[in-house]
């Protein structure tokens, strides 16, 4: 059995896809706060998924398959950041702390008023992980 160029491409795509998927998971496990973890899952995860899908498209090499692969990748690219956005703002709103090594939080103090439903929800975030001032200044 000979190894074709297509095989090489597919193998590379598969391996890199698997690698980035694993990286995403590792990131979610190892990185220090939820915001940083989302960097890993959103970027590496999407890339990993996209690469594997690309491998499928190359391996099966068919218009229908390619159309589906493109649709899947497009969809992932569209939804992953939105999901990250929704999770991220939720995390920020309920007061999930930033990693203590974070250098700046310009958002703090400038949040939009919560919608009515959320206004009278339980106690607001009791503490902020970062000391004021919340201007753009960089902390060492």
């Amino acid at each position, binding site marked *: 059995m000979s190894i074709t160029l297509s095989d090489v491409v597919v193998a590379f795509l598969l391996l890199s896809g698997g690698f980035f998927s694993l990286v995403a998971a590792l990131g*979610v496990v190892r990185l220090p706060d939820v915001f940083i973890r989302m960097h890993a899952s959103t970027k590496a995860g999407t890339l990993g998924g996209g690469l594997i899908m690309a491998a499928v498209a190359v391996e099966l090499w068919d218009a229908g398959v390619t159309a589906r*692969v493109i649709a899947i990748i497009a969809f992932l690219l569209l939804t992953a950041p939105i999901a990250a956005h929704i999770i991220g703002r939720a995390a920020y709103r*309920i007061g999930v702390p930033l990693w203590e090594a974070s250098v700046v939080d310009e958002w703090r103090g400038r949040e939009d008023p919560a919608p009515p439903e959320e206004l009278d929800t339980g106690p607001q975030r009791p503490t902020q992980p970062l000391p004021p001032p919340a201007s753009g200044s960089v902390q060492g």
Partner: protein
Amino acid sequence: MMILPSVAEIGPLVAFAAILCALMLGAAMLLTLWRIARGPSLPDRVVGLDLVALLAVSVIGLLALVHHEAAFLDAALALALVAFLSTIALARYAVQRPRSGSRPERPEEEQP
């Protein structure tokens, strides 16, 4: 145990890559599971769940490749489309709490 299904029509290099990829995806799944179990915050778990769906799409892709079965991609497409919904719902669950007065409790098992 076989490493790949006997019906595989793929070349040896691809097969080798597929095996490694499968191992990596499996490991990724279990790692993500650990994060879901561990938390500590609700958004942490939601991030984990979101990633599970993404990994599942990848797994289906791998299956389609290994089996040379285009039909499997329909499942992947459907999953990719709807997984987003559960992430949105869970994130909203994380941010919304019961109004004070009606129910005193809040999801106290997870630290904010």
